């Protein structure tokens, strides 16, 4: 596929690099230094110029491209890039936006602004946060098959029920599949007799109910309370979206924002949230407001350092669970090592969304595991697929070894995948695929 990426900022560069391996990527940026850096350090064609001008886009081959990704830091520019690209050809246009207003318009009328896919980094990140805080002990949660299936990653704590047991013993749930273990940062495919150790991370795929039930056994050392009390620190776009999503679930989160004018804006936009204008690194304030009794603190300021500090302070005053936003992907592991429960990288969410569209039309949904060591994919199978028409026990022999069938949905019903389950055309199959098995799997299913 030929893909034009306009705007080589952090997100744009990340997308371009992750796509460059499998696709022909052209990057357009206004900054000559960025363009030089790209030309020398990566295997992509970098062009200097204004992405909203016809001539630049023509030079980048946007007319013939399969996809144009607009990911500059300016919403209006991204919309203009997509609109301009549409005048040149038939490419699939993707725009990254921050503004919730544009996203609302686009959701109400898809194709608005000449954008075929609108991706809001902040909203995607907030959705990630809300899914993670919704399940105790979860590190990552992604929905598949319109929410019938969930993929979740958990950290096994020393006191947990499943620590020290084999996978067979731990797998007490009918509609749950153990897809993988992550041990010391490496993905391991589990067998029935694999012993789960404290410190491992487990990736499970199943119905939301079974995932929730499993999360409770994993997190058995922690007691869950009736009313979930969430505190969001930082009133940027991510903080705003997180509060809004929590409100939509009927919760009343608290949001701490230091600047009083921004706090007022947020309070006006979020009727169900208690907004407080204060510095969240003030320990007296945290203690005085009883933040220590919160179920989770979400540090979502625009500075990684501050998020780390807030998370550690929160932990110190007694908060059970801390979630921090980390812009710099490399810090994520470090954050989790020093005591932040979950570090969420906004760029990963965006990359998942955009990479999903480069896998061709068959991948309905996608989630990245441990960087890109593995992917969880949702595929609608057709007549030609190796899975179709036979029991899974037989079809897995024709697939590479790093593949696990996690879940199947048939006519919007969950089907438990067992060895003798026969896959029918039209079924949605959620697969766990290790990175090295990815190419082989995509051809056959």
């Amino acid at each position, binding site marked *: 596929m030929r893909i034009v990426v306009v705007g080589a900022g952090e997100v744009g560069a990340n997308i371009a690099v992750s796509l460059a391996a499998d696709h022909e990527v052209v990057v357009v940026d206004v900054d000559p230094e960025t363009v030089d850096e790209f030309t020398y350090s990566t295997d992509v064609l970098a062009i200097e110029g204004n992405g909203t001008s016809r001539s630049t886009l023509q030079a980048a081959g946007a007319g013939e491209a399969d996809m144009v990704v607009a990911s500059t830091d300016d919403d209006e520019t991204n919309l203009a890039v997509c609109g301009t690209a549409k005048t040149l050809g038939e490419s699939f246009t993707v725009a990254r936006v921050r503004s919730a207003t544009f996203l609302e318009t686009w959701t109400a009328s898809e194709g608005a602004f000449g954008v075929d896919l609108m991706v809001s980094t902040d909203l995607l990140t907030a959705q990630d946060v809300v899914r993670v805080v919704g399940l105790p002990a979860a590190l990552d949660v992604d929905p598949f098959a319109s929410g019938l299936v969930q993929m979740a990653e958990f950290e096994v704590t020393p006191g947990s029920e499943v620590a020290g047991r084999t996978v067979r013993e731990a797998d007490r749930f009918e509609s749950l599949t153990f897809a993988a273990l992550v041990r010391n940062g490496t993905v391991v495919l589990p067998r029935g007799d694999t012993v789960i150790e404290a410190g491992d991370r487990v990736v499970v795929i199943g119905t939301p109910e079974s995932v929730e039930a499993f999360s409770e056994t994993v997190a058995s050392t922690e007691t869950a309370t009736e009313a979930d009390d969430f505190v969001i620190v930082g009133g940027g776009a991510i903080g705003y979206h997180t509060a809004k999503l929590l409100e939509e679930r009927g919760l009343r989160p608290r949001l701490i924002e230091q600047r*009083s004018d921004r706090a007022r804006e947020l*309070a006006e936009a979020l009727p169900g949230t208690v*907004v407080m204008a204060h510095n969240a690194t003030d320990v007296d304030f945290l203690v005085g*407001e009883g933040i220590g009794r919160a179920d989770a603190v979400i540090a979502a300021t625009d500075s990684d350092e501050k998020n780390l500090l807030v998370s550690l302070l929160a932990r110190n005053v007694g908060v059970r669970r801390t979630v921090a936003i980390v812009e710099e992907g490399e810090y994520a592991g470090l954050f989790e090592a020093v005591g932040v429960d979950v570090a969420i990288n906004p760029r990963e969410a965006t990359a998942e969304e955009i990479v999903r569209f480069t896998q061709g039309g068959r991948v309905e949904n996608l989630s990245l595991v441990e960087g890109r060591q593995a992917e969880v994919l949702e595929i609608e199978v057709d007549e030609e697929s190796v899975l179709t028409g036979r029991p899974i026990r037989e079809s897995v022999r024709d697939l590479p070894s790093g593949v696990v069938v996690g879940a199947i949905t048939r006519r919007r019903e969950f089907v438990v995948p067992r060895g003798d389950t026969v896959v029918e055309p039209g079924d949605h199959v959620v697969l766990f695929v290790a990175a090295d098995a990815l190419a082989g799997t995509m051809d056959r299913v």
Partner: protein
Amino acid sequence: MTVRVDWRVSCRLVGTVLRWLWVPLVVPLAVALLDGTTVMPFVLPMVGTVAVGFGLERLTDRTDLRAREAFLMVSLTWLAVAVAGATPFVLAGNGTLAEPVNALFESMSGITTTGATVVVAFDRHSRAILMWRAVIQWLGGLGILVLATAVLSQLSVGGAQLMETETQTRDVQKLTPRISETAGLLWRLYIGLTGLQIAVLYGLHLIGLAPEMTLYDAVAHAFTTVSTSGFSPRAASIAAFSPAVQWAVVPFMILGATNFVLLYFVLGGNLDRLRNSDEFRFYLGILGFFTLAVAGVLFAEGAPHAGVEEVARHSVFQVVSIVTTTGYASTDFDLWSSAAKHLLFVCMFVGGMAGSTTCSIKTLRWLVVLKAFRRDLFTVATPSAVRPVRLSGSVVDEETIRDIYAYTLVSLVFFIVATIFVAVDTSRVRLSITEFEAMGAAASTFFNVGPAFGIAGPFASYEPFPRSTKLVMTFLMWVGRIEIIPVLVLLTPSYWRS
């Protein structure tokens, strides 16, 4: 010292309004012609207002109305129309109304939709004069300047400014791009409601449920119901009519005190606006609460009313009549117990919804005061919390909240000062009234309700009050109707100086 206000523009536009006052005078003139009574009390004011109007219009050619001029114009217009409206009473020369102070009181009470009367013997006045009382109330109901904006092209630009000045609640919503069309829509709705009530009342007469309700009475009462004003050509007010009429009047008082913009949306089939309106629910809640309270008291005491229907009818009617600031009486509520009368007294301070024909403090302000105070209690416990006050989902900005607090406080101060004045001034002339009666009369005139208690009771008259008290009450009605601020602004030196 140079005067910063372009008073000529204000006066000129007052002239424009006066010049058209002959139109409403046609109604009593027609009644006089039909009845064969004297027409001079109406013909002379017609000539006079047209002449004065044209004279004022000669003052200047400029018509650009800014905020300063709007305050002056609004205040002067209501005063000028009240003075003009008093002339037919003086010229007719019958009964208590012949006395100029009484005539001005009656006219101001009419145009401000108060409904406090100085008439002692209703049968001494012609039907034409009694109709004129109803007509001026109807004109004042939705606001003279809303009417003026709707029909006078000179006010097409300044109209929004005027309508906003006339109703201090800052809720002038342009329903259409042109303000004159918006004003026109509101007036058509007002005329429609009035027409509907005439049809209902006269219909009851035709099917035999209301023997007393002639076409003349139907028109006169519709004029003073939808405008929530309360003059009646009958000495016994609505008590003169059958229970069916009393029940039929209630919904029209409630509608008259409902926000007309909401009513407009309801007519367009959009019921959600009404259902989602916090203020509407609060308004109905207030009516329900006081009705139940009054009914409970009347039941418990068993007098002066007996029977479920009678108690229910009088409690609903009186509470609605006082809360909406109409001021009709379905019974002599002055005979009620102290508990019931005090409940009605509290009702005087409520008022109906903002953007309607009602007066008093209005449910919008009380609701904002309550919500803001609840918010303040919350932030006392949680000082860093930022919590905006919301009304029907949208945020009320802090400046508006401050204005509403200030307005409510100033209203209460006005009421206290007025009460003291009434009590002291009446004792000066050895007219013995109780403090409660003084409070009632002060609240009833300042909040434009009409009847009060004791000598100002529903079947009594304000005539016995000394002239000085009546003049102060005339001032209170004027100030209360245009919501204090436009008049108070005129009294500040900085308004006049540059």
